[in-house]
């Protein structure tokens, strides 16, 4: 991709923007059980950070994960969701029965960690789907 949008203002501004966007995305993900937010929203925010980096810095982007790699990681995110469900099945429960997850904690903590597990899976899937579509769109100009 040619450096169409790069300028000294953007190069400086996005260095201050990216850490805050990433931090906010992680906050929305981790706090999703108690406040508005969750996996889908956090995935969109984190994906936008990567897209912004790709737009401003072009080929030299630090957070550059292109094409096939992004699709593979999105698939891993989807698998993470299923994996939590399968873990609870392995210990004798139903699919996604969080209180039977094989981790040494009490029921409430297991529930929280189970929900965090599936939210993380959703987040990774949404985030890398956005990145994959973005780099598939700009990839032809390279």
């Amino acid at each position, binding site marked *: 991709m040619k450096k169409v949008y790069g300028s000294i203002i953007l190069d400086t501004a996005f260095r201050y923007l990216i850490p805050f966007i990433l931090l906010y995305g992680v906050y929305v993900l981790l706090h999703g059980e108690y406040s508005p937010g969750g996996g889908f929203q956090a995935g969109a925010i984190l994906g936008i950070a990567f897209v912004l980096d790709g737009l401003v810095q072009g080929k030299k982007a630090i957070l550059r994960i292109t094409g096939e790699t992004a699709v593979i990681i999105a698939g891993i995110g989807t698998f993470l*969701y299923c994996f939590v469900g399968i873990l609870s099945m392995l210990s004798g429960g139903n699919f996604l029965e969080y209180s039977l997850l094989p981790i040494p904690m009490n029921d409430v903590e297991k529930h929280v960690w189970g929900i965090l597990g599936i939210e993380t899976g959703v987040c990774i899937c949404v985030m890398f789907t956005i990145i994959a*579509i973005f780099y598939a*769109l700009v990839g032809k100009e390279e």
Partner: protein
Amino acid sequence: MSRILASVAIVLMCLLLFSTTNGLPVLFDANSPASTHVTPRYIEKSHEETGSPNFVTAVLADYRGYDTLGETTVIFTAGLATAALLMASKKKSNRMKGGKDK
């Protein structure tokens, strides 16, 4: 000819949809089926049944966990298909004829 047929089909479909609008419950009606069937159960019981302090999370991750799994799969499939279509032919000679790349 097909354009006229399509227009007629659109107009008929619009009339059908508009004529059924009267049967829908009023927006925010407390006595509508949606507000009397599962909503009270979620509001009253979701905390003790799931332990989650947030209705939305309780519905999303507990009551309808399968649904969310389906949503995630749909998003992944859509991304996979889009990426596959857009990245299919990077060589110019493999692209479809037409447009500016003749």
